[in-house]
C-alpha cells in the first residue's frame, strides 16, 4: 500500500464501509505514516463538525393525494358489491322480485287485462273493446246547426256593437274638432282686434308728434323772420 492507495480508502474508512482486512491493512499503514494519519484525523474532525449542522423539518404534510372515495368507479364497485346476495332468503326475494318485474313488463307490452266478475275470472290481451257511447247522427247534425246559429248570432252582435262604438267615436271626434276650430277662430279675432288697437294708438301718437314738430318748426321760422 502507498499513500495514494491509502487516501483512496480514506472515505470508506471514515464511513465504515471498508472490509475488515482492508481496514486493518490501512490502520497498520497509518501507524507507520503519522502525517497521513493526521490528515485522516482532520477529515474525521470535519465530519464531526458537519454533524452539528441544524436542519428544519417541513411545516406540515406537503403533498397528499385525495382518496377517490366518491369516484364513479368506486360507486359502481359498491353497487355491484351490494347486489351480491349473501343469504338464501335474500336470493329467493331477489328471484321473486325479478319474476314480478318480468310479469309486469310482459303485461305492459301485451296490454293484458284482468277482470274479476260475478261470472268468473277474465284475462285478455290487446286493446280492450270500447263501447259506443254519445249522440246519434241526427242529434249531432242538430247540435252542429245549433252551434252554427249561435255563432252567427254572436258574430252579428259583435259587428253591430263595434259599428256603434265606431260611430260614437267618430261623432266625438267631430265635436272636438268643431270646438277646436271655434276656439282657434276666437283667438285669432282677439289677436286681430288687439293688433288694430295697437296700430291705432301708434298712428295717433305719431300724428301728435308730427304736429308738435311742425308747430315748433313754424314757431322757429316765425321768430327768424
Amino acid at each position: 500500500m502507498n499513500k495514494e492507495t491509502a487516501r483512496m480508502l480514506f472515505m470508506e474508512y471514515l464511513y465504515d464501509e471498508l472490509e475488515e482486512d482492508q481496514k486493518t491493512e490501512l490502520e497498520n499503514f497509518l501507524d507507520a505514516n503519522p502525517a497521513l494519519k493526521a490528515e485522516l484525523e482532520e477529515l474525521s474532525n470535519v465530519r464531526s463538525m458537519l454533524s452539528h449542522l441544524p436542519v428544519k423539518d417541513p411545516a406540515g404534510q406537503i403533498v397528499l393525494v385525495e382518496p377517490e372515495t366518491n369516484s364513479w368507479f368506486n360507486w359502481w364497485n359498491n353497487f355491484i358489491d351490494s347486489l351480491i346476495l349473501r343469504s338464501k332468503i335474500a336470493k329467493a326475494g331477489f328471484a321473486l322480485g325479478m319474476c314480478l318485474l318480468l310479469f309486469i313488463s310482459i303485461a305492459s307490452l301485451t296490454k293484458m287485462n284482468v277482470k274479476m266478475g260475478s261470472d268468473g275470472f277474465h284475462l285478455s290481451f290487446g286493446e280492450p273493446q270500447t263501447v259506443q257511447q254519445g249522440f246519434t247522427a241526427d242529434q249531432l247534425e242538430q247540435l252542429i246547426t245549433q252551434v252554427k246559429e249561435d255563432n252567427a248570432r254572436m258574430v252579428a252582435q259583435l259587428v253591430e256593437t263595434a259599428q256603434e262604438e265606431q260611430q260614437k267615436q267618430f261623432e266625438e271626434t267631430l265635436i272636438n274638432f268643431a270646438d277646436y276650430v271655434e276656439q282657434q277662430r276666437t283667438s285669432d279675432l282677439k289677436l286681430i282686434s288687439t293688433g288694430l288697437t295697437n296700430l291705432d294708438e301708434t298712428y295717433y301718437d305719431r300724428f301728435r308728434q308730427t304736429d308738435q314738430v311742425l308747430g315748433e318748426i313754424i314757431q322757429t321760422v316765425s321768430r327768424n323772420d
Partner: protein
Amino acid sequence: MDSGQANNMEDAQLVQDFRGGDQQAFNKLVLRWQNRIHHFAYRYFASSDDAAEITQKTFIKAYHKLDTLNDVNKFGSWIYRIANNLCLDELKRAGRKKATSYEALKTAPQTKTASPADGAVLRNEALVLLHKALLQLPVDQRVVVIMKEYEGLTFREIAEILDEPINTVKSRLYYGLSALKKTFDSWNINKEVFDYE
C-alpha cells in the same frame, strides 16, 4: 434482514399498491419520505421555502412517473435522483442570485465581533458558518457530502443516484471534506466550538 432492507421492501410494496390503484399507498410513501427529501433540499439551499418547493415538486413528479420506475426495490434512489435533478434545475434557473439569498446566511455573523468568552454565541455563529461553508462547495461535491453525511446513503447508492462511478463519488467526497477543512481553518472554526451546550 436489516432495517434498510425492510424499509426498501415496504416502499416496494407501497409502490406496487399504488400501481394497483391504491391512492392511499402514495400518501404513505409521502409520509415516509417527505422529511428526508425536505432535509436534503434544505441542506442543498439552506432555505425552507426552496426546500418545501423542491419537496412538493419531487412528489408531484414521482406521482406522475411512478409507473416508469423499473425496480420497485430502488424507490429510495429513484426519488433522491428526482429531488437532486430538481435541485440542479432550480440552481440553473435561479443562477447566481441563489447564492446570495440563503436564509441561513441572512444573519451571518462577523466572527471578529463575537466575544471569545461567549461560547454559546460562538457556537451559534459557527452553525451558520457551517452551512455557509457547505453552500460554498461546488455542487457536485456538495450533493455527495449531503447524501453521504446526512442522508446516510452508501457509496453504491450515491453512485447509482448520480449515475457516476463509485470512485468518482469517493473522490468528490474526499475533495469536498478537504475543501470544508480549509474553509473551517480560514474561519477559525474547530470542533471544540460545537462542544459548548
